[in-house]
């Protein structure tokens, strides 16, 4: 391998919010910084490209968020969503440091959307990037470049060179890059289908990756093989129901299917499996993602009649339509007889609520599984269907770190000069479950810490160097 001797104080590996925040903090602290991103420039930003908002605490209304969101509320919500298993020391850091994110971002040139502009959904928990995550990625990139950070796209790191617990260099296809300290912010492994298959079996072939194709986990898996302490469960994925016709990667927010409460969801046998009316909040996206993973072929079909289709939220791909339910089943390639039985049973079991005009109040009676709300007959032709599969958002799996983002090593202790931030360590905080806007908050808070810690190593090394020169 060609050996390059280009040495920087801090080498940041990754390209998303955590990597950019680390590079900026390290450069601000006076370190020389190299950033290596596996993705090409047009795919810069990791999955921050697809983000929209981030969660932070504030004691009162700010320019970007109405009302208040206290530390206690943030903490309680995250503990509730994950059902425990959260590293409390990291949680304290996350919740406390989140309060400073809006000011820090604005200071780096990131524009946040004004809460009062009348165009945002009400959210007292999050602030929104003006123009979305892509705009934030561009602004942070510009800031990093202005601070002298050298950014190299198309260069992933497969392994590190270790001297005991000290990282001395990163191994890339273009050679070795030495650095005084390293920030590991290159995400998880969930975009690698073979890794998914290893942990989830053949079912993983039916999954669609919603984000960057570059979250392939080469470095994460190398670290774990060498002795990094794992955290979370590789088989635990955050899944969202997406259109089965979506591209294999990077469909982002567009490919979600959202209209489940307006119809029924069947498998390839034409059978219902769950209560479509039970959950009309945004949590239904991930609930259905998890359910679809257990469907035959990991595929379900949302069946709507003309009335349901009119009420359904807009979707990226047009629904598959047919004049009758038999023709629809044939077009979908599912069991027509099974679908006919399901529809007949469903339509016959519908009971109006107290207000017959209110569709939300309708439910089924003596049907299993029930549909507890929005149970309207599926009768008005033409009939329509959206094929759905689980869309992988991230895996709840990574390396264990302490509150300084130091990478925990198997026989106790930590790597000397390597710090992990972002989705590579998010499982310390979210071993399962999710709350919206959390990934960007984790990435920014711990990216900043990792950058500062790495710059501190470089500064200490320089001080030692100066000390030696002084004595000589």
């Amino acid at each position: 391998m060609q050996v390059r001797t280009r040495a920087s104080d801090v080498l940041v590996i990754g390209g998303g919010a955590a990597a950019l925040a680390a590079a900026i903090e390290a450069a601000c602290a006076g370190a020389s910084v190299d950033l290596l991103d596996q993705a090409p420039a047009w795919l810069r930003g990791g999955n921050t490209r697809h983000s929209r908002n981030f969660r932070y605490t504030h004691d009162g209304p700010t320019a970007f968020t109405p009302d208040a969101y206290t530390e206690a509320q943030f903490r309680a919500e995250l503990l509730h969503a994950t059902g425990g298993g959260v590293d409390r020391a990291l949680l304290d850091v996350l919740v406390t440091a989140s309060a400073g994110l809006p000011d820090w971002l604005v200071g780096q040139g990131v524009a946040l959307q004004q809460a009062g502009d009348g165009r945002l959904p009400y959210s007292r928990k999050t602030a929104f990037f003006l123009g979305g995550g892509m705009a934030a990625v561009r602004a942070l990139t510009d800031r990093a470049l202005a601070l002298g950070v050298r950014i190299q796209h198309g260069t992933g790191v497969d392994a590190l060179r270790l001297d005991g617990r000290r990282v001395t260099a990163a191994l890339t296809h273009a050679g070795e890059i030495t650095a005084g300290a390293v920030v590991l912010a290159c995400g998880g492994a969930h975009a690698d289908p073979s890794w998914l298959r290893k942990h989830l079996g053949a079912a993983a072939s039916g999954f669609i990756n919603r984000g960057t194709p570059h979250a392939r986990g080469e470095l994460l898996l190398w670290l774990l093989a060498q002795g990094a302490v794992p955290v979370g469960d590789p088989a635990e994925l955050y899944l969202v129901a997406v259109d089965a016709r979506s591209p294999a990667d990077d469909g982002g927010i567009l490919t979600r299917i959202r209209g489940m409460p307006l119809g029924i969801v069947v498998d390839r046998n034409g059978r219902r499996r769950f209560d479509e009316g039970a959950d009309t909040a945004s949590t239904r996206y991930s609930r259905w993602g998890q359910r679809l993973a257990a469907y035959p072929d990991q595929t379900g079909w949302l069946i709507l009649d003309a009335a349901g289709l009119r009420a359904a939220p807009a979707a990226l791909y047009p629904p598959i339509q047919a004049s009758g339910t038999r023709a629809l089943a044939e077009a979908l390639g599912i069991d027509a007889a099974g679908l006919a039985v399901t529809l007949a049973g469903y339509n016959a079991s519908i009971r109006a609520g107290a207000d017959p005009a209110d569709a939300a109040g309708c439910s089924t009676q003596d049907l299993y599984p029930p549909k507890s709300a929005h149970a309207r007959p599926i009768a008005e032709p033409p009939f329509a269907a959206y094929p759905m599969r689980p869309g992988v958002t991230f895996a709840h799996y990574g390396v264990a770190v302490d509150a300084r983002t130091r990478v925990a090593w198997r026989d106790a202790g930590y790597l000397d000069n390597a710090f992990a931030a972002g989705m590579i360590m998010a499982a310390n905080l979210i071993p399962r479950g999710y709350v919206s806007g959390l990934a960007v908050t984790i990435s920014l808070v711990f990216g900043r810490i990792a950058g500062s810690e790495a710059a501190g190593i470089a500064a200490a090394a320089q001080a030692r160097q100066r000390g030696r020169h002084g004595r000589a």
Partner: protein
Amino acid sequence: MDGPEPAAVRAAPGPLGADPVAAEARRELAICNICNYCNGLCAVFAAAERRPQLTAGDLDHLANLCHHCRSCLYDCQYAPPHAFAVNLPRVLARLRWSSYARFAWPRSLAAAFTDGGRRVGSLAAGLVLAFTLAVLLAVPPAVLFAPHRDPGAFYRIVPWWLMVAGASLTFAAALLAIGASLGRFWRATTPAAHSTRRAGTPYVAVIRAAVDLLTLRNQQGGGPGCADLDHRPSRWRRYLHHALFYGFLLCFAATLAAAGYHHLLGRVAPYPLLSVPVLLGTAGGLGMVAGCLGLLWLRRREDATPTDPDSRGADSAALWLLLAVAGTGLALLALRATAAMGLLLAVHLGTVLALFLLLPYGKLVHGAYRGAALLRDALEARRR
């Protein structure tokens, strides 16, 4: 107009229907309506959300509501080379340009918009040349190339009545044509459901639309600025547009002031340097020159990705015409006491003639459509 119209023009005024540009705009806006990350950037995204059907009229409204700020291309997670290939500023620019042709009045003159507006550029140059030649032929050289310093100097080259009649008639024709086009645009972009639930006299909406138009509120990328040259937020295009637009208004005010001097005070041009018409005209002319040069510079340096390659020529033609109007006006002021005055006056009046005659048939008509779209947007905002 004699002879058959070109087929493309005959087909154009019909419904957008199967037009590939409209189909592409509909595809991209449908994506925007699901994603909506950009809704803080300008009024287009909220307006598109109110129009999920994206009818032909909806598309024309949205295309003209777009100020071509370009930020949404660089902020888009689906911009090319992504498979979803969303480049909204470009497709809306294409649609905007085609809407000018489809709503042009009289219809036969929609031909001006074909060929990316290059015809308008050559037509303008031809008009200036023709008017100058006419003056050269009509005015004896001894008069044309002699210095004139006394009151009425300009009118010895082009008679006062001809100047006033020429300017008034061409400007009135432009206003008539633009008014007729706007009427057709307004009817075409009125959503069927909205016409029945208009409430009260919309004073507030008119004021709001006027403020939006005069401040270019939607040309700020939601606050930080627009992608003038590349992805980085900038305020240059908006400020340069202000210099050009308000410079033009000052020149217009100078003309009105001169008319007041002539009719109310009985004073005949040329007016002294410190008179109201000359001060207004000088300030306005300098603003126009600065605005035109700046915008032409941006045009040379900008990333062309979010622009419509087919109508870029028309944008430049409009800027060069305005630059010619302002530049010859300032030159006329500087050299009005010399023997060059006669010829400069002819060229300057030729540029003004071309500007007025071609106002409805090129890029400059965008202001009228933008104002109408902003008014509709303000009316809808009132209803919410």
